[in-house]
């Protein structure tokens, strides 16, 4: 994890808890955001923005980890919206980030999913969250999560196993 210089800056509210949250969740959240965006740089930027939201709303964030996760998911989805204009650029990001890695058809196929399907799969198969928590993070009903996961897997299979 990146160095924590919490001794320099202390949030006014929930100081220790916020620092703990950062220590425990920053890097995992960046990984999560990376899986949803395919960009290391964007992932860090978005997770930092999510932490800013948590910091500003600390008193209202009764379950900071869930709040943080929801913020990360929402920000990643917004990031995808912004990238909607330039599909080629989005594709370039994925290709550039993948340079140096071995070919991974699964990863490439994941990048082609709709953001919401991709988020559902990441939350289920990487985070290991139950459907109820995925639904909460995505702001949908549990039944919708089932559908997203089912269709997402189906689309991946169509690409990877064709």
């Amino acid at each position, binding site marked *: 994890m990146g160095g924590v210089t919490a001794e320099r800056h202390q949030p006014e509210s929930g100081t220790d808890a916020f620092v703990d949250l950062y220590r425990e969740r920053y890097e995992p959240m960046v990984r999560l955001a990376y899986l949803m965006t395919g960009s290391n740089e964007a992932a860090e930027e978005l997770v930092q923005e999510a932490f800013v*939201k948590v910091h500003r709303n600390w008193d209202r964030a009764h379950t900071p980890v869930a709040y943080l996760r929801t913020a990360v998911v929402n920000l990643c989805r917004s990031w995808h919206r912004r990238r909607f204009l330039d599909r080629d650029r989005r594709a370039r990001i994925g290709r550039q980030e993948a340079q140096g890695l071995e070919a991974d058809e699964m990863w490439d196929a994941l990048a082609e999913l709709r953001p919401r399907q991709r988020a559902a799969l990441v939350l289920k198969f*990487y985070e290991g969250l139950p459907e109820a928590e995925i639904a909460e993070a995505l702001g949908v009903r549990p039944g919708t999560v089932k559908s997203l996961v089912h269709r997402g897997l189906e689309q991946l299979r169509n690409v990877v196993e064709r």
Partner: protein
Amino acid sequence: MSFEDRLRESMQTHAERVETSPDAYDRILERADGPRRPWLAPALAIASAAAVVALALAFVGGDDDPADEVVAGGPNSGGAPVASMPMWPVADFEALDAMQRRVDAGEERWLVDPEQVASRYLAEHDVDVDKVRMRPDEIDPESSAHTEAVAVGYLGGWVELARTDGAGDDAVWFVVGAHDSRLPVVDVVRTGAQVEVVFPIVSEDVDVVIRVGRSDREWLTEKTVEVRKRDPGRVVVDLDRGVPTPLILHLRTDAGDGFVGLTEMWVDDT
């Protein structure tokens, strides 16, 4: 190895290669303590919901009970559409780039996220846009992404960013019958009215939550519809009591890459 396990393994492999900045914590606190970035998320939310907005209202006469009264007004009352006004600030990419340059030079304030609106327009719609404007008396330059201070006007009302919990919620309000003198004036839509909402769907497989209320804190009804195809969605909401205007309609979609724009809304209590 199962397909799901292969997926897990792929995710794990890529996630483990993520690098993080050593100064991330300081940057978080600097951003939390520093000036907030206006427009970003509100613009996204607005643009995503308002790339194409057309509104039609029809009003009919009411009865003697003021609480149930419908006051017709305006030249288009009685069933004819008031207006159809898609929203789009520029005509093409060239104009978009020019607008971006003016904004970068400080000559013009940014109204909506150009990228987002452009994407919606160019990818999904072939329409002309008349106006996109902000409601300046409610704009707070220091507003963060989760305030309700930003609105986009269109003939028929405004699209506003809803109050949210600060977690990036992209809900929007459609405030119907307010702020525009060209609108029919309706004081109350009587009990038993039906609000029929038609909306285009960019994404399929989404849930759309529609609320109708008299304020953004007092909802009279809420209905969730599942959209499984790209066809335009349609839902009818029955009002079990009178609704004083401005009638507030709240459409929210859970689509990550789509939006719900209000295509038509009919208030019918015949």
